C-alpha cells in the first residue's frame, strides 16, 4: 500500500460519494472499487481462464456473466474480463492480477478509467428501460452487458433483482449521472 499524501476525489468531484434517492430507488456513486482488465494472450486462452478462476475463486465468467467472491470478474469481450475488488484493500489490483495471470494474459489498470453507480431498491427496470436498450427480461442475477447510455458506452451488471451496477467512463460522469437521475425522476 502506498503512503502518499495526495487526497483522492470522487468522479463527481466530491470527497464523499454522491447518494440520491428517488421513490424506492437509490443511486450511489461507488468510488471504492478497483478494476483491472485481463485479456488472454493469443493461444493462452484456457490457461488464462484457469488463472483467472484461481484469482477470483470461481470459474471465469462466460459471455455476459459475472462471477467471483471477494474478487469478482465480469465478461468484457472475447477472452477479456474486468476484475473488481474493494479499492481499500486492492488499490494495486493491476499488480496483483499481473502476478496471478503470469504470462497468460495482459493486465491493465482500469480503476480510474471508469466510474460506477449502483442502483438499489424496487423498480429499477423502470429506470433502466429509459436509459439503455438492453432486454431487461434476459438480465438476470449475475448478468453483465455492454450498452450505450446517453451515447456513453457503459457496462450494466445485475447483482440481484434489487441491485444493479452501472459502469461508465470516468470523464463522462456528469452526463451519466444526469441521465440516471433524470430517468429516476421520470420513471419513479
Amino acid at each position: 500500500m502506498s503512503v502518499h499524501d495526495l487526497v483522492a476525489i470522487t468522479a463527481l468531484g466530491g470527497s464523499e460519494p454522491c447518494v440520491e434517492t428517488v421513490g424506492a430507488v437509490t443511486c450511489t456513486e461507488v468510488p471504492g472499487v478497483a478494476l483491472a482488465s485481463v485479456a488472454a494472450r493469443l493461444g493462452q486462452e484456457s490457461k488464462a481462464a484457469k488463472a483467472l478462476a484461481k484469482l477470483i475463486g470461481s470459474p471465469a465468467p462466460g459471455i455476459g456473466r459475472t462471477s467471483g467472491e471477494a474478487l469478482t470478474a465480469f465478461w468484457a469481450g472475447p477472452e477479456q474480463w474486468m476484475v473488481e475488488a474493494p479499492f481499500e484493500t486492492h488499490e494495486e489490483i493491476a499488480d496483483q492480477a499481473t502476478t496471478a495471470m503470469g504470462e497468460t494474459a495482459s493486465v491493465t489498470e482500469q480503476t480510474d478509467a471508469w466510474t460506477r453507480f449502483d442502483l438499489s431498491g424496487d423498480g429499477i427496470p423502470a429506470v433502466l428501460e429509459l436509459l439503455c436498450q438492453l432486454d431487461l427480461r434476459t438480465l438476470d442475477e449475475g448478468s453483465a452487458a455492454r450498452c450505450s447510455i446517453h451515447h456513453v458506452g457503459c457496462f450494466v451488471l445485475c447483482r440481484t433483482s434489487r441491485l444493479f451496477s452501472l459502469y461508465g467512463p470516468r470523464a463522462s460522469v456528469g452526463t451519466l449521472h444526469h441521465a440516471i437521475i433524470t430517468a429516476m425522476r421520470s420513471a419513479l
Partner: protein
Amino acid sequence: MTQTNRLSGGQIDRNTTLNFRFDNRSYTAHSGDTLASALLANGVRMIGRSFKYHRPRGVLTAGSEEPNGIVELRTGNRKEPNTRATTTEMFDGLEAQSQNRWPSLKYDALAVNDLFSNFLSAGFYYKTFMWPAAFWEKLYEPMIRRAAGLGSLSMEDDPDEYDKGFRHCDLLIIGSGPSGLMAALTAGRAGADVILADEDFALGGRLNSETFTLGDHSASDWAAQAVAELSALPNVRLMPRTTVIGAFDHGVYGAVERTGDHLPTLPAAKPRQILWRIYTKRALLCAGATERPIAFENNDRPGIMMAGALRSYANRFAVTASERVAIFTNNDDGHRTAADMHAKGVKIAAVVDVRDDAPTSHDYEVLRGAQVTDTKGRHGLTFVEVALADGTTRTLDCGALGVSGGWNPNVHLTCHQRGRPAWNEALAAFVPGPDLPVGLSVAGAANGVMSTHGALQSGAEEAAQLLELSGALPDLPKAEDAPVAQKPFWCVEGCKRAWLDQQNDVTVKDVKLSYQEGFRSVEHLKRYTTLGMATDQGKTSNMGGLAIMAEVAGKSIPETGTTIFRPPYTPVPIGTFAGRMRGQEFHPTRLTPSHYWAKERGAVFVEVGNWLRAQWFPLPGETHWRESVDREVRQTRASVGVCDCTTLGKIDVQGTDAAAFLNRIYANGFAKLAVGKTRYGLMLREDGIAMDDGTAGRLAEDHFVVTTTTANAANVYRHMEFVRQCLCPDMDVQLISTTEAWAQYAVAGPNARKLLQKIVDPEFDISNEGFPFMACGNITVCGGLRARLFRISFSGELAFEIAVPARYGDALMRRLMTEGEEFAVVPYGTEALGVMRIEKGHAAGNELNGTTTALNLGMGRMVSKKKDSIGSTLSEREALNEPDALRMVGIKPVDADHKITAGGHLMNTEGPVDAAHDQGYVTSAAYSPSLNSSIGLGFLKNGGNRLGEQMRLVSPVTDLTVEVEIVSAHFVDPEGERVRA
C-alpha cells in the same frame, strides 16, 4: 354555456364536469371528451380557417386522420400549433385558440382570398412570384408565409421534459380494435410478452363507437372486459395514448407515448411524452381503416363530416353536430350511421345514396340513386342540395352531413420499408402488399377484413401464427359478419369547387389542372398541388386525389400508384425526438481530472469534441483573452507552466507481438525502440495520407502506451482494433483504452525539472542524464503514489508529462501549483498550448487534415522503406510525390503589425489571384508573444526550397491581402536545444 348538442348515453363521465376555453370563451365538457367532441357538444361547429382560401372549417373526423379541426393548444411557452382537436383529450383548464384567422375566426380579413380562388389555383406561387428573383426571399416568401401557414409558434423554449426509452416484447400489437384486442388475448393467455399500443386514450378502437353486440355484450362493454383481462396479465403491457409512428429496420418500432398531454399540469420532472424504441421479432398491425370522403361542390363547410365520425361522436361521446343530420353515402356503412343517429333521437333529414339499389328504412327517407350537388351556409352547413334519380333537385334542411365513400385500410406502417400496397378490386382500396417489414403481419380492417367477426378471427389467427402457438384458438364472441363490397364513388360530376385535401385547400380542379400542366407522376402531383402534405399526410385525401388523377390520365388507380408512406405516422414534437438530450445535455460531456480545480480558478472552457478543456486562465485585471494567453506563454517559456493533457488518447498495447504490431501501424520503425524510451510516431491511412500522430512509450518488452491526438483518440483506437482483429489476427496483441484512467499533465519550461523534483520521489533520477529527452518510465510521486513520467515536449521547452491515477489528478494539480509557487508556475490552457506548438512548428489537427501526406508535413523520410506498414506503399503514388508537392512552412508578415489568417491562400507577389495560380494555404495562425509578431503554419508548393521568399497571403472572400515571408516552421529553438536541456 350549456352543452346543447349533448345526447344520452356514451362513454363520458357525466359526474365530472371540466371547464375549458376556446377562442377566449368558456365552455364545459366531461371527462372522456376530446376537444372536438366538447366543442360540438357546445354547438361550436366552426373551429378554424383553411390554409389558402381562409374558408370556415370544422372537424371532419373523430380521429388522428383529422385535416381540419386543428388548433393552437395551451398558451405561452407551452403553446402547440396545429394540434388536432379530435385527439386532444379534455382536461380541466384546457385552453385552445383557432388559427389562421385575423382578427377573429368569424370575421377573417383574408377570407377575401376565397373571392380570388380562380387565381389561387395549383402552382399559383410558382407562376406568380417568379420575378424579380431578388424579391423572393425578402418579400414574396415572408408575405406568403404570413398569409398562408396554419398555427404559429410561441418562439419560446419549450419548458416541458421529454424522455426516451427502450422496450422489448415477443409481440407488438399496434391498435386495440377488435383484431388487436383478440390478438392480445390470444397471445397474452398463451404467456407471450405482449405490448398492445393504441393512439387513443381509451382502448377498444372502433368498438367504442359502435352499437352492435359481441356475444352478449355491447361492443364497448366487450372491449372493456377484454382490456380488464389483459390488464391483469403480468406478461401484457397496455400502452394507451401511444402512437406507433414507424416500422424501422431489424424489428424496431418507434412509438410516442403521451404521458402528460392529458394532464392540466405536468408533475415535476415527469415527461410530457416518451419516445419508445420497441424491439420485437414479431409485430401485428391492427390499425383499422380510415373512412374516405366524397368530393362534391362546397363539401368543406363546418358540419360536413365523415359518417363514421358522426357515429363516433353520437355513440362514444354522446354528441351530435346538429339536431338535423343528412347522410351522403355509396355504401351500407353510411346507413349504419343514420340508424344509430336516429336511435339517439337525432332527426335524419335523408340518406342520400348514389346506389339505385340502396337499402331503405322505415325510420327515415332514403334517396336512392341521388347525389349531393351543393351545400349552403356561411359559417356552417344549413342546406344540402340533392340531385335526385329522376333528374329533379331537392334541398335538405340540415346542420350536419355525414359522408361515406367507403373505408381505406390503414396500410401506412406496412410501407415504411419501401413496400408497396396492393390494389383490392372488391374493396376498391389499397391493402397491404406482399413486401412487409420482416416479422410484421396485418389483421382486421388494416388487412381489408372489414367485418367485426373477420377482425376478431384474423387477430386471433395472426397472433397464433406469429407466435407459433399450437392448440385451438380462443372462442370468439358472436359478432356481425356482413359482407363488405365497396363500389368506388370519388366525386360528383360537374362540381367546380370540390375539396379533396381540406388541410391544404386542394380541389378536384387543382388535380386536373396539375395533370394538364404536365405533372403526371403522383409524386409530382403531390409537390405541385401540396395534396397529402402537412400534419395529416393526406390520410383522408390521398385516395381521392389518386382517383381523380387516374381518371384524367385514363389509367387505373393501381397503375397510377401511391406516394411513399414515411414515418412518422402522425406529427411528433421535436422535443420528443430530443428527449433528455437538449441544451447542455445535447451530447455527452467529458471532464478532465483538473476540471473542478480549473473551474475554481475561473478558467474559460472550450469544447474539444466532447471534452471541456480549459482554454485560458484569466487573472484579475486581464480584460482580453490575448492578455491571458500571452502571459501564459511567456511565463511558461520563462519559467514553468502546467497544462492538463489528459484528453490525448492513451491506448495500452500489450502482447508478445506488441512491437511488431506498432511497426505495422506506424509509418516509422518501432521494433527496436528500447524499453524506457518514447518515440514520435506517424500513422498513415491505407491510402497513404497522414492519419494521426503521437508518441508511443515502451514500458516493457511487451508493453507500450500509445498516445493519440485528442480529436482522433476514438478513430485511432477503432483503427487499431480493426488492424488487430481483421488484418493481423495472428498477432498476440491486446488493446485497451486508458485515456481517462490517468490524469496526465504537461509540465513545461526551463524550471520544469526543478518543479517535478519536488514531487517525484527521490529514488527516481530525473536529471538530464538519468532521464534524457524521450525517456519514459513508471515512477512514484508524493511518497509512493504510482505514476508515469514521459520526457516529451509539445511546447518546445524542457518538458515532461506526468500521469497519476485520475482520482488523484485534482490533488496533483493543486500540489504542482503549491510547489511551483517559488518558480511562479502558471497553468496554461489550450490557447497557449496552440501558440507554443505553432511557435515550435509542430503539426496538429489543422495540418493533419485528411489531405496531407508525410511528405507534405516534412516527414517524408519517416516513412520507413525497410518494413511494410499501413499506407507506406500508397504514399509512394506519383501524384503525391511531385517535385512541387506542398511542404509545411512557417509564415510571417513582412510588417509585424499585420496579421496572418488561417484559411488564407498563398499567391506569388505578382500575377493573378485565382485557383490556377494558388501556391498553398495557411492552416494555423497565432500571435507569438515570443516573436512579438503574428505567425502561421501552412503548406506551400515546393515550400522547402522557398524559404525567404515574399508572397501574398490573400483571402478574396474577406478581401484580405497581406505581404508575407516564407520562413522555417520552427520559429522557436529550431535546433531543439531547450527540449534536451
